[in-house]
């Protein structure tokens, strides 16, 4: 049997010499010729071409060298502006419902059945408040942002973004298709990493995987939007607040794109040297978006999935935070010990101990960074009657109130800016790390992809802090 198989392979090898070296090209040619012939027979074109081709006109505009990038930035800014200004009201409503009304009710209920203080604390002040916070803060912006983004996608705009970015990637020594996986990463980095499968060359695929983390993902958009609203939006007159906040979020997203180019360039000239391969990018036709269906699927696929993930991680995080804030060692809580320990290093980076602890807690899910930060800040700075005792995650009715809390905790504009930077540039979440390992099958590349961004984050925030302090004299 075995020899039979070998005989086939042997004669195939011999016959290959007979049929000529251009066999592959010839067969492909025959295939194309036949395809053309069959297609020609089946398709009749109208005698007269339409004079005005809408698709081509739009394409000329959005992929033009002059207007391509400004239009892209304008469109993103508009989307964020809508998100930021639109999310305020529903956020407030959800907050007053879940936290103002329901939380005291739950507390009263627990008291009436005589629940012990620690159980009541863990369940209601820890788990419930953490979850309620995540829902009231994250649901409104997501419910606005994701449908808008999905509409752009359904319309066919994303490949044009990729088209605009393609030649820059080529210059950076990376595959042009990386522009697609990068755009995918704006939704979720784990999905972005999987989508690099469209890249054939292992070298270029690794570059795309390692740099995907610089695409702001679903879990980080809310952090950016919130910090921008609180620190940057409140610095300008109220009517400009939304616009300026939106622009600063766009600036961070663009910085991520620049970092993607820079790091790709550096990798392809150092540890991942090699030739750039070519490819064809097909621009799909513009399709009128199906509004209702888009609303529905983006609600199910994105909003609820992300929200659910946030809740799953917020629940145990709330319990752990409450416990660590109420577990005393030498008269000081465990959480405070940890924060104090990391504080000097944090301040050096223009951040603080609270932010670093929050990022450790948030390794499973970046979605819970802001709730953790607020809770820890109140706890450390004494809280002065805000919130409801130590270790309680809470919500504040306006950006200004949140700002007050944070300034009490020693925050400055620099802290806000550096938090936005660090949120962009730090290690991937645990799901993404696991996905990178599955896709590359290599512990070495997984480690590089996980550690490189966080080291970069430290370096960039450090220099930002030093330069800022030098100029501002703080």
């Amino acid at each position, binding site marked *: 049997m075995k020899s039979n198989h070998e005989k086939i392979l042997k004669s195939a090898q011999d016959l*290959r010499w007979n049929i000529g070296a251009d066999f592959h090209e010839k067969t492909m040619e025959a295939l194309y010729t036949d395809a053309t012939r069959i297609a020609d027979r089946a398709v009749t074109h109208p005698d007269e071409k339409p004079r005005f081709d809408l698709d081509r006109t739009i394409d000329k505009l959005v992929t033009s060298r002059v207007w391509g990038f400004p239009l892209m930035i304008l469109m993103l800014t508009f989307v964020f502006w809508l998100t930021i200004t639109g999310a305020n009201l529903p956020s407030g409503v959800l907050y007053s419902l879940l936290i103002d009304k329901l939380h005291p009710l739950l507390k009263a209920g627990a008291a009436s059945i005589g629940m012990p203080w620690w159980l009541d604390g863990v369940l209601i002040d820890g788990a419930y408040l953490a979850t309620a916070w995540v829902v009231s803060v994250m649901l409104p912006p997501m419910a606005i942002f994701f449908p808008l983004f999905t509409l752009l996608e359904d319309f066919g705009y994303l490949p044009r973004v990729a088209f605009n970015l393609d030649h820059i990637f080529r210059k950076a020594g990376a595959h042009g298709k990386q522009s697609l996986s990068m755009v995918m990463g704006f939704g979720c980095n784990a999905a972005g990493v999987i989508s690099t499968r469209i890249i054939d060359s292992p070298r270029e695929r690794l570059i795309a995987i390692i740099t995907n983390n610089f695409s702001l993902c679903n879990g980080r958009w809310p952090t950016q939007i919130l910090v921008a609203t609180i620190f940057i939006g409140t610095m300008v007159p109220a009517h400009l607040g939304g616009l300026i906040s939106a622009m600063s979020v766009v600036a961070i997203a663009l910085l991520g794109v620049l970092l993607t180019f820079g790091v790709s360039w550096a990798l392809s000239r150092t540890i991942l040297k090699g030739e750039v391969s070519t490819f064809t990018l097909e621009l799909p036709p513009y399709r009128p978006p199906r509004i209702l269906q888009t609303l529905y699927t983006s609600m199910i696929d994105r909003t609820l999935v992300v929200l659910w993930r946030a809740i799953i991680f917020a629940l145990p995080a709330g319990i752990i935070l409450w416990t660590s804030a109420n577990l005393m060692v030498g008269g000081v809580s465990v959480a405070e010990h940890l924060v104090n320990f990391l504080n000097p290093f944090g301040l050096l980076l223009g951040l603080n101990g609270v932010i670093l602890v929050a990022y450790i807690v948030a390794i499973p899910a970046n979605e819970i960074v802001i709730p953790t930060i607020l809770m820890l800040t109140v706890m450390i700075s004494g809280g002065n009657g805000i919130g409801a005792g130590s270790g309680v995650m809470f919500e504040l009715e306006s950006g200004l109130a949140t700002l007050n809390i944070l300034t009490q905790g020693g925050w400055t504009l620099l802290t806000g800016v550096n938090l936005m930077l660090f949120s962009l540039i730090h290690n991937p979440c645990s799901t993404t790390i696991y996905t990178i390992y599955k896709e590359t099958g290599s512990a070495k590349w997984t480690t590089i992809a996980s550690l490189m961004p966080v080291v970069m984050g430290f370096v960039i925030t450090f220099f930002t802090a030093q330069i800022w302090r030098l100029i501002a004299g703080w």
Partner: protein
Amino acid sequence: MAKEKNNIAQEESNLAGVNADCASCPVHHAANLKKLGVDMENWDFVVALAGNPNTGKSTVFNALTGLRQHTGNWPGKTVTRAEGGFEYADNRYKLVDLPGTYSLLATSLDEEIARDFILFGQPDVTIVVVDASRLERNLNLVLQVLEITNRVVIALNLMDEADRHQMKVDHRRLARDLGVPVVPTIARYNEGFEDLLAAIHEVAEGETLAKPYQVKYDNPKLDRAVSQLVTQIEEAFPQVPNARWVALRLLDGDERIIKAVEDGELGELSYTRDDLEGASVTHVSHKSGFAQ
């Protein structure tokens, strides 16, 4: 359910043109689709969804299974295999959504996943979703699929876009030329699925006799080489349904197929349907190709 593929293949000529009774008439089953979501237990037939990128494979997948595989207007959206189930005319189908590819030459991971499944997964029906407004380029893939299997249904999708470009696509002529059923659809708006389901049903049950078009290479030397190899292949692997394609791939030096001949994996293609139950998926190999 003894629907043995090989018997069907042998009896195909007998079944030609014979419509058993009303129960197999498409009109009878028109509104008979039952979306089963991820429930794929006890399937009778496996159906693969292939096609160029961005032709609407995932939209067809969602419409038939009721699942919500993410769809988007850009090429390369689906890079993994998604699976779901549906029931039609008393048969349970397992539907596998393959990554979109322009060819089946397996030069990248997504092409390899698609090709390995069509070849080694041995689906009972392969639906090729085709963009009617870009027919010529899409037919390249169709012709390659037809070299591997004759159990094909073409979903001539995006008919609305062809209309928008004021093109007329004659699906009957296309069906005659390709030798397989061609069904015009507009998947985004759920149009044409009844005909598509009926066509799937007929191919799955072996009621449609397919005479797929074969690419003409017009090269006497090649023809001789192919027929010599086909004889050898059919001798070593008597059950292989597409010896001509295997011969062409061997002549082209396709490493995956050379390996399949070497270790006899090609012989496993002669599985009967019952043997394949639950085993088909394991033949799809995954290579990552990264150095440690």
